[in-house]
């Protein structure tokens, strides 16, 4: 990787929560979410906490549990920390079920990592990419928007969309819920790229590209494609690669059209006139990215070799109508294949509620009950990071600034010290302590933080953590 700059990447996921009650009163989803966070509040005295793995866990507007991975530089670390987030939130659900049982409610709580509920409310999965500030932002976004409009062909999670008795299989969960190309707002206008400029780093050097168009992905290989292709396109643009004008006349319409066309062949109107298909757009960007990667010496470097190979194979599979080539690796293809088999076996109409249930259960993060873990055990969902690495990521921060934060949080928790922290600041809540500002997200060793942690350890003997504690 010496030939290439490192990049900070992270994913924020809003989870859906469903619950079935067999006994006792039924609770509204907001109340279930509050039960989910009782353990967090008991641990951190707040429903908005940073954990020892450097991540942030909080109860978002709309009562969604939200997990933001720590700052990662290794793409496979992003995968591990994204999966760790699923297990951490599942752990909250297990705890909440127990609390409900103690109060006489026999309930099963489902944590669903998808992006749409049964009434069409949408919640997101936001990718963050740290980019250099030099140059105009438009140089990046002019190409990135059309890339993201068509990226769903390789990174969509798929969705069975049912209106009355009409069922449509969509490539993307999120496409129908995007309303603008670029904007600084998120809730009201839902842009593809959010331009709100909070780098959590030196603002003179960096900006944070906040991509909110992506589907939450269960498949590890699809998550790799999602962040890996985007990272490569960004690298290529940052390196000054000349890219032809790919701008679309109406990105918001185009993203819906692409989602409704699993063949990738529907013509999309270009801003400069004429049309281009999603498949051709992705092909062109893949070729440019491959050439860039070869020139930069990373085409054969893991995991970029895998990203390029799988990107190419997916486009080839769509182009040749041979989706079986990627049916253990690309999520919308995997899910479609399962829905088809299931409908076939039970003789179900395309809009049947059992298929809609299957679509939701696909996103169940439960390690035994979730459909993707079941497919993994049957060899039908390829993985890239093993269970041990994911388990480690639940407690160990990646080797970035997250390590400073994670070590600080762990020490403060073990010694029962009140503290305040965010992505950049660390502070013990007592009059004598100063705030430590960690501006550089790449720096994982800092004498000031070591001193701060030493002062915590010198202050009192550690308390052992409760088993199964959040942190």
């Amino acid at each position, binding site marked *: 990787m010496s030939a290439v700059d490192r990049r900070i990447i992270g994913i924020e996921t809003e989870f859906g929560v469903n619950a*079935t009650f067999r006994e006792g009163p039924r609770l509204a989803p907001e109340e279930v979410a509050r039960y989910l966070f009782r353990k967090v509040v008991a641990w951190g005295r707040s429903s908005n906490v940073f954990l020892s793995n450097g991540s942030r866990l909080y109860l978002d507007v*709309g009562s969604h549990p939200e997990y933001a991975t720590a700052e990662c530089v290794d793409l496979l670390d992003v995968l591990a920390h994204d999966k760790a987030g699923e297990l951490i939130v599942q752990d909250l659900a297990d705890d909440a079920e127990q609390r409900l049982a103690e109060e006489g409610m026999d309930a099963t709580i489902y944590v669903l990592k998808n992006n749409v509920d*049964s009434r069409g409310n949408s919640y997101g999965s936001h990718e963050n990419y740290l980019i250099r500030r030099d140059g105009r932002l438009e140089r990046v976004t002019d190409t990135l928007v059309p890339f993201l409009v068509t990226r769903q062909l390789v990174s969509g999670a798929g969705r069975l969309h049912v209106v009355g008795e009409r069922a449509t299989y969509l490539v993307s969960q999120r496409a129908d819920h995007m309303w603008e190309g670029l904007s600084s707002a998120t809730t009201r206008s839902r842009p593809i790229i959010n331009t709100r400029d909070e780098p959590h780093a030196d603002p003179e050097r960096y900006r944070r590209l906040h991509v*909110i168009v992506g589907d939450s992905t269960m498949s590890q290989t699809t998550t790799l494609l999602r962040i890996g292709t985007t990272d490569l396109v960004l690298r290529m643009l940052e390196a000054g690669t000349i890219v032809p004008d790919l701008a679309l006349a109406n990105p918001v319409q185009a993203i819906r059209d692409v989602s409704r066309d699993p063949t990738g062949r529907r013509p999309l109107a270009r801003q400069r006139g004429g049309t281009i298909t999603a498949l051709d757009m992705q092909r062109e960007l893949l070729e440019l990215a491959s050439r860039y990667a070869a020139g930069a010496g990373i085409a054969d470097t893991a995991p970029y070799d895998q990203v390029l190979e799988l990107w190419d194979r997916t486009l080839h599979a769509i182009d040749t109508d041979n989706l079986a080539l990627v049916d253990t690796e690309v999520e919308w293809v995997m899910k479609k294949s399962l829905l088809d088999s299931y409908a076939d*076996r039970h003789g179900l109409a395309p809009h049947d509620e*059992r298929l809609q249930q299957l679509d939701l259960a696909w996103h169940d993060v439960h390690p*035994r009950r979730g459909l993707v873990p*079941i497919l993994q055990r049957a060899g*039908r969902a390829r993985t890239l990071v093993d269970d041990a690495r994911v388990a480690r990521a639940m407690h160990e921060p990646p080797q970035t600034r997250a390590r400073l934060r994670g070590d600080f949080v762990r020490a403060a928790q073990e010694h029962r010290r009140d503290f305040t922290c965010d992505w950049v600041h660390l502070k013990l809540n007592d009059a004598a302590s100063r705030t430590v500002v960690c501006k550089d997200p790449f720096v994982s060793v800092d004498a000031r933080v070591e001193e701060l942690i030493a002062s915590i350890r010198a202050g009192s003997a550690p308390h052992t953590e409760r088993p199964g504690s959040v942190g």
Partner: protein
Amino acid sequence: MSEQQKFTSRRDDAAPEPEPAVPPAAPQAQHAERDAALDSLLDEIDGVLETNAQEFVHNFVQKGGQ
């Protein structure tokens, strides 16, 4: 883990052993093996889904996020 083992053994039970007389590459045998594996997978999935699909789907209503 015991459940995982159970699932695995069930899959093994369901996979037919190819008869020694039948060439292993025979397309029909391959098909049968694939179908048996898929059947066992769909069985496992049926075993983890809530029985009332309608209730599960209709109850899943969230407030908008972000």
